């Protein structure tokens, strides 16, 4: 431990503080960013923690098939979920199949805008498009007997129509799934009674007012099968408490124990990590030059020898200056008005149920965690890198997802920074052991930190609310 910062090793003494009020000793994320040369925007100057209880979280919600089925009905069929990016379906006829558990939705670009349909034929049920992912067609034709719909969902032709005189075309329009657009993402919702996407997003549109993710394009898209429940996987990414043990190399350059955690409404939460500082856990704080040399920036290959800290400068200032220039040039975009923290830090928003967004510039990811088919103990974890749209010329076509198997390193993905791949490898290497431990445990649930693991508690509380509402409606 940093010898200037006293931290007890054994928990238990609340020192008279109310629950959830204690914080890591030493400077907070806000203290660190307040000293930046180019100061943060207002949305990053606020903090909003709320104590939400300290009871254990039952392991059965990660292992039980019954619970999984409940989620399929009361969460996945009721919430807004990001299905694809608009750039996945740029032209009329382009479509994207989005699947979650057994649900399958066909998102189609039509003359009249983007529509989504339940991906099942109205004849005998065959999926109109068999697999997840991008495609393109001028009509939607079922591969079994050839019933065909227009992109707008109208029944267009039925082979041997004489045999189906009882099929009235008006009654055989493809049933629609609701569609909403925000930040270049196409969201879908299978619940006709759900609130609008805009209401569902709560503070997100306001927070992202100056981070228009619609002005980004997908540079990289990878998927990894994880041997865990989708929530187990996601919960490994919405706290930074694990950095100390799981990513020891990141302590050199990450303010981990002093990450800021914020909760908003039911669907939105965030965490905010100042980089380019020593971890409060480090015994010997690093020099500013050492910090610049070791901080994680998402793509080390872009920076060269300009990373020299001059007398009196902070690592954060130097890295922000260099990245502002090299990333601005690399992506043909102007970053001159962007603050240091937006360039270099980890700013991570969570949107219920399964989306994680990073509005920052050097770590520009989006994550999604999805249950796979009918297995409560497997999920698909996806990472997209969203880069600024070039000011001139067209961005490249969005890539197909590169699938990384459970045993493979994230480093196999072309364009993946090896330092970042190592972090992801560490993040998911423990998941199988954790998922199996849920079943092996005598203790029936997990215990959470009041502050650093608040996003997990907030997420699970909202999940419980959806399940309770669904069950109340019967």
């Amino acid at each position: 431990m940093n010898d200037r910062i006293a931290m007890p090793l054994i928990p238990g003494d609340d020192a008279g503080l109310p629950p959830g009020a204690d914080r890591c000793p030493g400077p907070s994320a806000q203290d660190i960013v307040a000293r930046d040369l180019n100061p943060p925007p207002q949305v990053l100057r606020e903090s909003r923690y709320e104590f939400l209880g300290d009871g254990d979280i039952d392991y059965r919600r990660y292992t039980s098939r019954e619970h999984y089925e409940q989620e399929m009905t009361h969460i996945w069929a009721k919430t807004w979920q990001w299905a694809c990016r608009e750039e996945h379906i740029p032209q009329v006829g382009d479509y994207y199949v989005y699947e979650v558990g057994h649900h399958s939705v066909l998102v189609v670009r039509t003359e009249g805008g983007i529509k989504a349909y339940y991906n099942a034929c109205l004849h005998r049920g065959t999926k109109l498009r068999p697999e997840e992912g991008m495609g393109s067609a001028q009509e939607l034709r079922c591969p079994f007997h050839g019933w065909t719909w227009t992109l707008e969902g109208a029944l267009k032709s039925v082979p041997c129509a004489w045999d189906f005189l009882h099929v009235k075309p008006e009654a055989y329009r493809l049933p629609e799934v609701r569609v909403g657009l925000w930040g270049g993402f196409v969201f879908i919702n299978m619940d006709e009674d759900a609130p609008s996407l805009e209401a569902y997003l709560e503070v997100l549109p306001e927070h992202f007012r100056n981070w228009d993710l619609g002005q980004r394009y997908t540079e990289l898209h990878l998927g990894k099968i994880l041997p865990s429940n989708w929530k187990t996987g996601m919960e490994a990414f919405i706290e930074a408490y694990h950095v100390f043990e799981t990513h020891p190399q990141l302590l050199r350059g990450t303010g981990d124990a002093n990450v800021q955690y914020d909760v908003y409404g039911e669907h939105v939460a965030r965490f905010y990590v100042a980089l380019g500082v020593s971890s409060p856990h480090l015994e010997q704080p690093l020099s500013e030059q050492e910090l610049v040399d070791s901080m994680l920036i998402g793509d080390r290959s872009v920076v060269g020898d300009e990373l020299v800290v001059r007398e009196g400068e902070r690592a954060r200032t130097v890295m922000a200056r260099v990245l502002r220039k090299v990333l601005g040039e690399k992506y043909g975009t102007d970053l001159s008005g962007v603050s240091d923290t937006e360039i270099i830090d980890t700013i991570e928003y969570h949107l219920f149920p399964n989306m994680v967004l990073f509005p920052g510039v050097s770590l520009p990811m989006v994550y999604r965690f999805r249950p796979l088919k009918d297995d409560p103990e497997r999920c698909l974890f996806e990472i997209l890198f969203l880069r600024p749209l070039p000011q001139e010329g067209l961005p490249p076509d969005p890539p197909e997802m590169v699938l990384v198997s459970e045993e493979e390193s994230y480093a196999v993905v072309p364009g993946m920074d090896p330092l970042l791949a190592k972090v992801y490898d560490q993040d998911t290497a423990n998941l199988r052991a954790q998922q199996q431990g849920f079943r092996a445990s005598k203790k029936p649930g997990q215990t959470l930190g009041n502050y650093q693991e608040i996003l997990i508690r907030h997420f699970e509380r909202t999940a419980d609310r959806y399940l309770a509402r669904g069950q109340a409606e019967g």
Partner: protein
Amino acid sequence: MSNAFHSVLDAAELPPGASKAVQIDGHNILVGNSAGEFFAVQNRCTHQDSPLEGGRIRNGLIACPLHGVMFDVRTGCGKGQMGRVPLRTYALRVVEGRIEVSVDMPLTA
């Protein structure tokens, strides 16, 4: 005819994203342009036999217009369970602005 390349089209007739069916010695072949790179594959989908002509070409894949199965235009490999059988691919070259295709040259990778 063996090892012969047949001149089929002016390269200029085929902008990126376009494809055109041609007949050579009884082979029905689709010649296309994938982001500036020309390719030649059999013009019959291995799923349920639809011609591939006019299918959207993106990311090095052509989508069959009938049920949407996608094939890699370089290797012929299909995607997913309906694309298990690959397309035959043909050797192609561009000579003085003309696209030439051979129906019997083994493809070198």
